[in-house]
């Protein structure tokens, strides 16, 4: 079958210029393999939501092509749309309708008979812990519930590609973890997932492949593992047992004092941490614990975005 050999998503030379002249996307190419869990990262205004908007046809592209499992979103829009489920960033359901009606109606728009629609609505509302709220007006749901309702709605036609635009924004940690588990489970069952997020930890924990987009261009498209290999330097925070009067000096390790019980140090991948500990112990300083100053991916992300910014400035 066509869709089994084709990429889940194939974007080619996609550009978008909004009325007023703002160029949100500058001829981007992107492929996502079937079954992948893919992260699309980028700062605000980088073009993530525009890309997602074009995939689900809420934004009109200026040029280029988008194919979903081999089906062009222009020429074969009906089939392409059947394959895509989308969870937008903002709440976009009728706040006066009940969750069960929102899901069953959405199924209807995909031509799913009501009996099947009710069965699926029950399945997904139960999986997302919303079954008890099925007859509650959706405006009374909490923020987290509303977000889960949008995930259930996106899954009601059982799409092969699920696109989530910052699905855990504003969601508490416990709920975020349960949503991660749910998404990982449906990914294991074969659904390809593309997600945009501001939480880089989220991308590192969930996704296998990643594209970083900035100023409407893809600045990096690789696997998370490959990307992390490029990390040459990491910054650590060391918590000390003794109160420090001044910043200790260790040759080759640029230490800085954060406060009287903690130090910060940037270490190259080639350097041994043991040497640092030994040198500190010689000076009578005992390290109680050590942690990354920031998320590893975050450091790379800022490096890439910064580099892209400098290149754009030179142009």
């Amino acid at each position, binding site marked *: 079958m066509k869709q089994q050999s084709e990429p889940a998503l194939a974007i080619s030379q996609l550009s978008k210029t*909004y009325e007023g002249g703002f160029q949100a996307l500058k001829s981007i190419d992107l492929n996502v393999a079937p079954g992948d869990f893919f992260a699309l990262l980028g700062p605000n205004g980088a073009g993530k939501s525009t890309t997602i*908007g074009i995939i*689900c*046809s*809420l*934004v*009109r592209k200026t040029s280029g092509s988008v194919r979903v499992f081999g089906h062009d979103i222009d020429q074969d*829009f*009906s*089939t392409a*749309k*059947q394959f*895509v489920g*989308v969870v*937008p960033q*903002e*709440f*976009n*359901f*009728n*706040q*006066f309708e009940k969750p069960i*009606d*929102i899901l069953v*109606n*959405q199924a*209807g*728009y*995909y*031509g*799913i*008979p*009501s009996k099947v629609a009710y069965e699926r609505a029950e399945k997904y509302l139960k999986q997302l812990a919303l079954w008890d709220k099925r007859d509650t007006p959706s405006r009374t749901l909490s923020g987290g519930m509303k977000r889960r309702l949008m995930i259930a*709605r996106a899954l009601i036609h059982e799409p092969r590609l699920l696109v989530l635009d910052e699905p855990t924004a504003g969601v508490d940690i416990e709920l975020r973890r349960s949503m991660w588990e749910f998404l990982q489970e449906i990914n294991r069952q074969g659904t390809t997932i593309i997600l945009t997020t501001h939480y880089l930890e989220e991308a590192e924990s969930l996704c296998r492949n990643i594209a970083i987009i900035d100023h409407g261009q893809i600045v990096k498209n690789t696997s998370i593992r490959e990307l992390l290999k490029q990390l040459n330097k990491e910054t650590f925070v060391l918590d000390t047992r003794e109160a420090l009067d001044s910043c200790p000096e260790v040759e080759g390790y640029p230490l800085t004092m954060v406060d009287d019980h903690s130090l910060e140090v940037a270490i190259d991948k080639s350097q041994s941490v043991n040497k640092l500990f030994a040198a500190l112990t010689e000076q009578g300083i005992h390290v109680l614990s050590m942690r990354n100053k920031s998320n590893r991916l975050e450091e790379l992300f800022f490096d890439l975005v910064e580099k892209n910014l400098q290149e754009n400035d030179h142009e």
Partner: protein
Amino acid sequence: MNNSQKWIAFSTIVRREIHRFLRIWPQTLVPPIITIVLYFVIFGRLIGSRIGEMSELPYIQFVAPGLIMMSVITNSYSNVVSSFYGSKFQRNIEELLVSPTPNWIILLGYVVGGMSRGLGVGAMVTLLSLYFADFSLHSLPITIGIVLMTSLMFSLAGLINAIFAGSFDDISIIPTFVLTPLIYLGGVFYSTDMLGDFWGSVSLINPILYMVNAFRYGMVGITDINVAWSFIMVGLFSVVLFGVALRLLEKGSRLRS
């Protein structure tokens, strides 16, 4: 989508639209009934009894078809304009836009939803009018035909208004400043014979005049204008409005960025 799936999508939109106006019946069904009853009491009974006859009919019989048509027009229009704009405002129109439902099905779904309310309120007003006036139906096909086409036409107009609307003000401007004057000057309360040659001719550019007269002809057999013209006019307007509304949906005007 195959035809069976298209039918499911269409019936889902229609069912949701009907459910919407039934759920908020104090806003959608009660006010037009109260308004029309007041018209019947004041213009039909109290003032009408002093007016006597209009076009050789008791005034209440003359005015009743116009009042029924008025409720069909305003309810068909306002249902679609408020529902579609509400969907735009809350952004739940995106539920339809991301789905494979073709634009012509979306259009038909909203229009049939609007017609359901317009014709439903029209039927209730007709039943109420029987309390105030006696009717012997002159032509059922003409009555049904013109009321269906009128409801269709104003549902389409309501959808176009909603597509262009950028605020709630925009969905009340046309009903207040265009629709209401056209209805009041559309021969609901008087015969155009009373206006003299000049103003009678000016009235002919008002499409509602044709609808009210055709409906009145269907109900009581009296009309100021040619009924065939009425059908041609309403039919032409409906075809043009359908084409415009579909084109706007295809282009995604004010719906897709």
